[in-house]
């Protein structure tokens, strides 16, 4: 059995992989690894939920298997499919050659195309399974996941029950588009990723974008903190912060002024109404934004 990482080690390793995480998140990850329980991450869009799984697969040196959920996703497309074309060819060739065949022959491993969930369970090496944006999938699919999440096994009618060779590390993310069912939540550890504090945001900007100068990073985080206090339809997340800081670096700007905010507002807001509100309040936001930390 591989050695368990401590909370501090996880935090440090993630930092090295340019993901700045706080103590709480690092601890929940530690706990989920120790208890071998799935981890459910909720939070506003763009706070780095999916990134956790990616970084985790890196630091644990395990393969990442990703299942992106969408409306109408069903069990067959996530477990396995039969390779019909190959099965038909097999039948025809045996016919032509005059050989006889058993029905079981064409429902064997050879004709099975494994999909993410089956791949994760049958994998010889340990993997990280990311079930992304589960709130987009239908409730039926959520119910289907219960067996995997609690017992790490799935039941396929043609093949019986398949148990996990190695229990995968499971990370589930949700944007709270809809409320998840309690049964699913009970099977997971729960953590809510909030917007980062200004201090941590500066650290994130610098980690992801080393070229940026201190003053600018401080100013960006100050403005973001102010914007997140306002009523917007979609508040800018960390992803938007990083886009913006990258844009400013590309433009080789040393400071932020109103004109620049007008030009780059597309990095921060994606709705017409939000953009207009932002333009209305930019003077107010810009004033004293450098003092975001002290305030």
């Amino acid at each position, binding site marked *: 059995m591989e050695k368990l990482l401590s909370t501090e080690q996880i935090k440090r390793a993630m930092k090295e992989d340019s993901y700045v995480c706080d103590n709480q998140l690092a601890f*929940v990850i530690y706990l989920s690894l120790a*208890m071998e329980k799935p981890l459910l991450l909720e939070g506003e869009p763009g706070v780095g939920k999916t990134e956790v799984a990616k970084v985790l697969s890196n630091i644990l040196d395990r393969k990442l298997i990703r299942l992106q959920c969408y409306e109408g996703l069903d069990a067959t497309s996530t477990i396995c499919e039969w390779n019909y074309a190959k099965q*038909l060819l097999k039948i025809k060739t045996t016919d032509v050659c005059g050989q006889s065949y058993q029905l079981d022959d064409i429902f064997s491993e050879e004709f099975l195309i494994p999909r993410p969930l089956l791949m994760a369970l049958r994998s010889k090496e340990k993997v990280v399974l990311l079930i992304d944006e589960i709130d987009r999938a239908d409730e039926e699919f959520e119910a289907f996941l219960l067996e995997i999440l609690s017992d790490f096994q799935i039941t396929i009618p043609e093949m019986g029950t398949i148990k996990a060779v190695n229990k995968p590390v499971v990370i589930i993310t949700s944007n709270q588009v809809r409320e998840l069912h309690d049964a699913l939540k009970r*099977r997971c*550890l729960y*953590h*809510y990723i909030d917007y980062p504090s200004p201090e941590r945001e500066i650290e994130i900007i610098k980690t992801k974008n080393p070229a940026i100068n201190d003053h600018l990073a401080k100013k960006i985080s100050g403005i973001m903190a102010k914007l997140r206090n306002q*009523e917007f339809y979609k508040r800018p997340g960390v992803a938007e912060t990083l886009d913006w800081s990258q844009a400013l670096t590309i433009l080789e700007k040393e400071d932020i002024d109103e004109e620049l905010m007008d030009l780059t507002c597309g990095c921060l807001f994606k709705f017409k*109404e939000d953009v*207009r509100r932002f333009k209305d309040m930019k003077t107010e936001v810009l004033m004293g934004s450098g003092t975001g930390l002290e305030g």
Partner: protein
Amino acid sequence: MAVKRELNEKDYQKRSQNLIKRILLFANLLRSNRVPVSMKNELDAMAALKYVNIESRFEFYMALRSTMLVSHKYFPIFDQLFDSFWKTEDNFPDTCGGDTEDQICSPNPETDPENKNTAQKAEQNETGDETAGEIMKEASEEEDSPPSEETPLPTYSLSTPFREKDFEDVRPEELYIYDELFKSLRINIKEKKGRRFKSSSKGKIIDFQKSIRQSRQKGGEIIDIYKKEKKPKRSKLVLLADVSGSMDIYSTFLIKFIYELQKHLRDTETFVFGAQLKRITDLINYRSIKVALSLLSHNVLFWSGGTNLGGSFMQFNETYGGKLRKKSRILVILSDGWDKGDIDLLKKQMSVFKKGFKKIIWLNPNLKYDNYEPLCMGMAAAMPYVDYFLPCHNLKTLEVFVELIKKI
């Protein structure tokens, strides 16, 4: 990171048993404050303690929080209860769990002293004054004792007069009956089927096109028969509720109604307005109405103030309109139409609504008077744009409204 203690075996066992009991008590305390904690959560919490250093407050806190809670909505109340329940012994005052006088923490005044007692007892237990068995026994006795004699349970025969009773005449002691009655409203709208199809494994109609198209991949042999069914047509609601002074009597009931609506209808967006407008969809998205109500009173500062219909509607159109104004949505306005704002502005906003939404329903409590005519300026200005004008002064009229949105 297993906990290593220099204790003899017996002492160690006793301590760990005490800890388990305290965790159970803590889970009970959470439950009595309407935080859903299941038995599975409790077991997980205990399992998690194997891996943490329980002498570190942070690790202990995170272990309980991540295993016991299922939503971040409960973080604040969890923090509050955790702080008061798991105080360290040296700064531990007489009361425990009871010094939180916040409304969220003690939704029911009857249960609060009980919490105090259980928590206190638990603490005594730690110091070894009482045996653990006695504590558990007493705690369970307290829970078993009937809450009070004077609260009769609502029965069906009672509900009929209450259904037709004006909200205005409801006495405070009758309020609890309404909580039950609101729950029994048949809001669960069966989704209407539209004219378009979607593929579905449960469908009854064979999707020939898809079956044949898919068969081409397999050398023209139809192996899978794909089916389809009619695509459901969902009516989504946008609710704008007036909480100004003139609606005072009704707003408590209407908010409860809105709470139930939002619980059952997916994608309902809710706003309250008075002098200005505020989105409360997230605030009332709670499992407990009491938590939702107290959150509302903390966050909506213009409650019982003046009304500015035009201004509030403009704020809606400018901030949320682009996203929410759709032909698939029905706009529901709950207001008596008393307005102190600009009438032309109101007309303009109503015409924007009319173009954008599928239907506009206006619920007005004053419609209960037989000879009511929409004479006050706001109402008169808005009338031409309204598709359905309904009363909302008692439960029966709300049922009519629910039936209506099932049909639209």
